């Protein structure tokens, strides 16, 4: 089966064409502000290199850091209102309390806490204040808010008030994009609220991006369905990505780590992905990225997403070299204009690597004049940065196998004190796009079960159902694994019952 994997990164857009588990061809271009033209150029070139006809492609899988970056850089975010349904409870901690001030102002946030929401047993805390909601609807229009996060207390147990609030706000302003918290997150009001607001403020960007990508595939005459990769390494249909952009968070590191594991054949070790500006370091355990702890911060906001535990440092091929210091400033995607070896005026980490004979790119004669002392000092700085980052991520004191990927990984030395060995697999430059191409499909069950027949029997049934759905979605039945099990007891129902959520994932057949 022919698949195209694409990684739309902050600097480069990479595309690979894969036939089963074989990389047929790949291409790398510069990421464009619209994401689409870069993707079209990369895919067109990769397809041309492969000799595969567009009609033979069965799926296009795109991983992108675009939505995470928009939050981190506070760019392209929709003006967003937050409507919390919970009065008179919840007043002690208003929405966005722990948010960085610059992010609040980047989304022109206005928060409302009104009467509504439910108790744990499904009773109303207060009746939903519909008059207030209509007033807020008018206000949202006047303020020019494009998105609304609607967050009801105990909505994962009872979603009625959130749905009603959406209907009222949509009626007031049909153009506004509503994100409902019970569709975005799980129990835990603040973290779910934060995730819902992040999702809401990305709604404009998500719509533009997905429309662009779909148009790009049409331009390429690619009839295959478009998927985006999620933070857990599984695929989501493009329409879902439009509604839940927040689910793509951290899919960049996930893809590069899974791609690195796949290309190297190693199931355990440390992945170091060196890009143009930053280096991501994470651990893989039995082929999967190790997950971060309970609370994960994105752009300074606390969430409860499941994400790989990745350490980012300011080291890349474009990092400035000054007085023996390397980074964090970088020429980024302008490397091929501004670096010395390409005729530019800025001394970068790549120039130093070329001068020392570690890397070959551009014109080595242009860095022949560099002092040996300067080169040695910069290289030892690069090595120390890489060594320290790997050391912080590894889980035991023993040297670990290290998989080096990403275009900038040519900076790295052949050995480091913390590494038992350093493997740079074939196609290391596009590990990220390979990770997208091998993304797995998932099947999910999320509904209320009666536990009367016994919890074990119920869980077994839910797991079997989720696995079957993964198979129906194209997963290899032999290799489906249960990735997530979550239970929310619903004590208000007459018999012992629980909301059970199970996710099964497996590779495409």
């Amino acid at each position, binding site marked *: 089966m022919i698949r195209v994997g694409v990684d739309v990164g902050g600097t480069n857009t990479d595309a690979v064409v894969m036939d089963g588990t074989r990389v047929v061809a790949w291409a790398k271009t510069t990421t464009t502000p619209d994401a689409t033209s870069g993707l079209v150029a990369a895919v067109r070139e990769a397809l041309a290199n492969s000799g595969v006809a567009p009609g033979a492609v069965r799926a296009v899988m795109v991983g992108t850091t675009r939505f995470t970056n928009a939050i981190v850089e506070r760019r392209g975010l929709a003006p967003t209102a937050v409507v919390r349904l919970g009065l008179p*409870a919840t*007043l*002690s901690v208003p929405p966005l309390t722990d948010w960085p001030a610059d992010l609040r102002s980047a989304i022109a946030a206005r928060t409302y806490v009104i009467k509504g929401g439910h*108790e744990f047993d499904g009773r109303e805390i207060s009746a939903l204040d519909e008059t207030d909601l209509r007033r807020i609807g008018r206000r949202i229009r006047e303020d020019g808010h494009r998105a609304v996060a609607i967050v009801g207390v105990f909505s994962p147990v009872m979603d009625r008030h959130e749905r009603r609030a959406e209907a009222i706000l949509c009626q007031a302003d049909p153009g506004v994009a509503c994100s409902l918290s019970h569709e975005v997150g799980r129990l835990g009001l603040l973290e779910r609220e934060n995730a819902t607001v992040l999702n809401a403020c990305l709604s404009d960007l998500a719509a533009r991006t997905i429309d662009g990508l779909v148009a790009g595939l049409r331009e390429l005459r690619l009839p295959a369905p478009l998927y985006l990769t999620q933070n857990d390494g599984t695929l989501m249909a493009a329409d879902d990505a439009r509604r839940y952009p927040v689910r793509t968070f951290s899919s960049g590191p996930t893809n590069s780590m899974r791609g690195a594991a796949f290309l190297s054949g190693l199931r355990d070790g440390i992945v170091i992905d060196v890009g143009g500006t930053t280096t991501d370091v994470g651990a893989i355990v039995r082929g999967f990225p190790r997950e971060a702890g309970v609370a994960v911060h994105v752009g300074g906001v606390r969430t409860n997403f499941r994400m790989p535990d990745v350490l980012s440092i300011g080291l890349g091929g474009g990092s400035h070299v000054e007085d023996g210091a390397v980074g964090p400033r970088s020429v980024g995607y302008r490397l091929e204009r501004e670096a010395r070896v390409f005729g530019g005026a800025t001394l970068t980490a790549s120039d130093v690597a070329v001068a020392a004979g570690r890397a070959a790119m551009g014109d080595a004669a242009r860095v022949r004049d560099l002092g040996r002392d300067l080169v040695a000092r910069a290289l030892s700085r690069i090595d120390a940065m890489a060594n320290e980052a790997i050391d912080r991520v590894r889980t035991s004191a023993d040297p670990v196998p290290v998989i080096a990927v990403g275009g900038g990984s040519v900076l790295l030395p052949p050995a480091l004190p913390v590494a038992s060995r350093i493997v740079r697999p074939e196609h290391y430059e596009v590990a990220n796009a390979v990770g997208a191409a091998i993304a797995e499909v998932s099947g999910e069950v999320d509904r209320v079960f009666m*536990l009367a027949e016994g919890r074990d029997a119920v869980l077994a049934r839910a797991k079997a159902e989720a696995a079957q759905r993964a198979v129906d979605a194209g997963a290899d039945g032999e290799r489906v694994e249960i990735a*997530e099990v979550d*239970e929310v*007891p619903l004590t208000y129902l007459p018999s012992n019952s629980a909301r059970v959520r199970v996710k099964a994932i497996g590779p495409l057949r």
Partner: protein
Amino acid sequence: MSITAADVEAIAVGAGILGTGGGGNVYVAKLWIRQLLKDGRTIALRPLEETTDDAWVASCGGIGAPTVSFEKLRRGDEELRAMRALEERVGARMDAVVSVEIGGANSMRPMAVAAQAGIPMLDADGMGRAFPELQMETFAMYGVPCVPAAIADDKGAVTLWDTPMDARELERVARARCIEMGGSAGMAQAMRGRDVKRAAIPGSVSLALRLGRAVIDARERKADPIAAALGVSGGRVLLRGKIVDVERRTTAGFARGRVRIAGDGAELAIDFQNEHLIAWETRGGGRGRRAAGPIRPRDKGPLRQMVASVPDLVCIVASDDAEPIGTELLRYGYRVTVLGLPSHPLLRTPEALAVVGPRAFGYDVDFVPLAD
């Protein structure tokens, strides 16, 4: 001393560890205290022995299921209104507040009352950790009258009890009222200074502070925060591993369940009722003593050996940064370290074990202090 914003951060970490999985949402409570400090209010911490015998002290804290406190955040004046009702009843202003339990969010809630009412908080508490029920306060164990007591909800309702009753009876009626109030409420009990000095666990706020500072400092120095915590609290690592199963049910206002953690060649099953109660070894090690517990019928594997039990503290923290993980946040796949910490001597007397030993929670085993 006056509690600073940095102290609040440290107490939150320390109280999270002492919460042994329960004690409610300390993060949310911390945000609330931080806001009160930002608004210019102050929180004075006073040593227990500086309380006069005749002083009025309100022991304050939240009551309810942690599940609820993570989701239905506080209105913010629940405990204060409960305390005001007590003042009206006894006809005097309270001179100080004391935490009913240092573990979890109830380390923070008395701070809110201290800030709002402008009275000091005592460096002490009524549990030395977290426990699920009112009769498990040291005040009750050592004969301090549990009334007058009041609880307040987020809608303005206050219920006060002042007829003499024992703490179990108060627990029963207050729990039922709390469930009617939506599963989370603020509570206060009025006591005299002489009783508090006799029955409270001294120094628990400063213990939480030292514990939190040690962990935060170790994280900043890239040292081992778990070792740093054990350096302050004593105790040891019971297991490092991964969560392989979490079973939950919310019954009668409590979050109950069992979590299984698999580590190198061993597996622990930890039973919880809001807090972690008992750690059983189910595989590996094991001297083969089979133990009977009320959760037996749902067992998947034999429980072989009790490794730690109430009143000693069974804590689950993230393996990398020692961040305490509440029972609500336990999830399949997390990499965690299980710690056993010794309890305060006031919790190990015969009077105390009768209400907070394993038998008090329905287990047919005797308390065995943590092995070294």
